């Protein structure tokens, strides 16, 4: 399998006044195409910072980050924005949907920032994806008319609409009940099965075991990096292939 991500000795310091806080103290790992990785750690461990760096939203203080073999630390702001637009899809714990626009408009938002986008095709694709996650009848609803699980499914479709190589999920089940959480995990597993690379940040062991590989972060260092021997298949939702 080809390497998608190669992190070498990534460090990240934050400066607040005179005090320098080291959040990441030298993180290195490789992630291949098609992997489903859970990054685990307690709050303050630096796992969110790591995810933002992986998603090109933040730059490390030092270290090397190769994405598809490209040295991303040498790229300028516009190029990084392009990477975020084309190569990464974000899923947030709090969904981050815009309440004033419809489900479909929310899902279409990332296409605004594509350099070349066939709107008609993109919309067809978005509708298809929404149908796939069981929201075909909700296209013109407002997000606040949907349940938490449904909102997160909208957010997943939004992350997929530009067809990115990598999906980054930050505690995607953190705000959901267990039933809805299982639905979300089932969708992520299914996407992974189709070959999409998924990196998920979580602090729940139970959720992490849905991934194929778990990386533990503690105090800004990788303390454990293991393959999940028996991946737990989430089977609770109404999600159908």
């Amino acid at each position, binding site marked *: 399998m080809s390497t998608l991500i190669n992190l070498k000795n990534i460090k990240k310091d934050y400066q607040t006044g005179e005090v320098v806080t080291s959040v990441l103290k030298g993180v290195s790992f490789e992630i291949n195409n098609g992997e489903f990785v859970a990054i685990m750690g307690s709050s303050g461990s630096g796992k969110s910072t790591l995810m933002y760096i992986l998603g090109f939203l933040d730059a490390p203080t030092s270290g090397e980050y190769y994405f598809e073999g490209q040295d991303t630390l040498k790229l300028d702001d*516009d190029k990084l*924005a392009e990477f975020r637009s084309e190569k990464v899809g974000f899923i*947030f714990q709090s969904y981050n949907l815009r309440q004033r626009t419809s489900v479909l*408009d929310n899902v279409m938002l*990332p*296409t605004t*920032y*594509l*350099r070349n986008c066939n*709107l008609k095709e993109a919309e067809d694709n978005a509708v298809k994806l929404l149908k796939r996650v069981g929201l075909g009848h909700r296209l013109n609803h407002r997000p606040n008319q949907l349940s938490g699980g449904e909102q997160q499914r909208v957010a997943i479709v939004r992350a997929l609409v530009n067809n990115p190589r990598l999906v980054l999920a930050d505690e995607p089940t953190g705000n959901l009940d267990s039933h809805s959480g299982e639905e979300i995990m089932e969708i992520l597993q299914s996407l992974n099965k189709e070959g999409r690379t998924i990196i998920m940040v979580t602090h729940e062991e139970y959720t992490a075991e849905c991934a194929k590989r778990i990386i533990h972060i503690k105090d800004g260092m990788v303390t454990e990096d293991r393959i999940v021997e028996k991946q737990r298949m989430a089977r609770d939702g109404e999600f159908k292939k």
Partner: protein
Amino acid sequence: MNIFQTIKSSLTNLAANKVRSFLTMLGMIIGVGSVIAIMSVGAGAQSLIFNEISSFGTNLIGVMPGGSEEDAPPASMMGAVITTLTYDDAKAIGEIPHIEAVTPYSNGNANISFGDKIKNINFIGVTSQYVDVEDNKVSLGRFISPEEDESTARIVVLGSEVKDDLFGEDNPLNKRIKIDKTSFLVVGVMQKKGASLVASRDKEVFIPVKTAQKVMLGVDHVGLIRAKVDDEKNMSLVNSEIRKLLQQRHNIKDSKKIDFTVRSMDQALDMIGTVTDALNLFLGAIAAISLIVGGIGIMNIMLVSVTERTREIGLRKALGANKGNILTQFLTESIIITFIGGLIGIIGGSIFAAIISGVAQYLGYDWDLVITPFSVILSFIIAVLIGIIFGIYPANKAAKLNAIEALRHE
């Protein structure tokens, strides 16, 4: 980035805060509206003055007593009584080629009475050629005859309104009226001229100039001489001929001591145009201040909007927006506010101007509704420019937000 999606998104945002968007626009609406209205009303008033003056005929030359600087009004217009022009000057001017008609004016104010009706009016002493000079006609009876020009005949021609006031529907011809204490025979009534800015000819009465001078006023000079030239292309020739003639008649060698002023109608129009243009510009500039105030309002609201939507900005950055995209997004919103505000302002200002001109026309004034493409385009461009100028700071602030901090913003 797709500009249509950006515009659609901006419209959605503005529609989500309808009241706020409208109040923000209001500054633009009032600003653009008042610029349009003031420029239009100014142009309308200018047209009224021009029409008024042109209604006397554009190929008129006026001679006023007292010297003057070029482009400045002669001293006689400032209220000074100068006695250098005479009836004979007018007669001599009438001999100059290309002059079709000439009349001196000797005006005064008096009480006019018929029976128990008394009115205060202006009487105007002129010669028989007055009707040709000012292009005026009698509707009843006759005007002053050439034989009466040299006489002090006690005859009077009434303005249409004076006739209505004194006689109503009755025939005034051959009736005797009193101007102050002197008895006059009514020989004619003038045609109605309509409303006027300066002094309505309908409210005046006409008597022979000698009668005005000798009987009513007891003077030898006249206040004004007006001549009509056969063709506009001869205006400057006649103008200089009159100067030459009067200089000779008044025995003036030093051109600095010239005691009269010759002005043609086009010069007068030019002078009035300069004054009214400056006035319009001044009023327009005052109206434009409200545009700037409106612009500051837009900046204020956009700054609030940036703070409110910090999370959205973070999200957009996470989804692939670069600084330019965010800048464009917010700039588009402020431009849309000024664009729509400008449109409404143009429509509102035009309606206001139309109402003003409608009222003026209803009152009988010769008022044109003038809304120039220039003023529309100008105020529109200014409105959009204000959207850019006052939108750029908030938009830039949004573009520079740190994506991660923005995403964590509550």
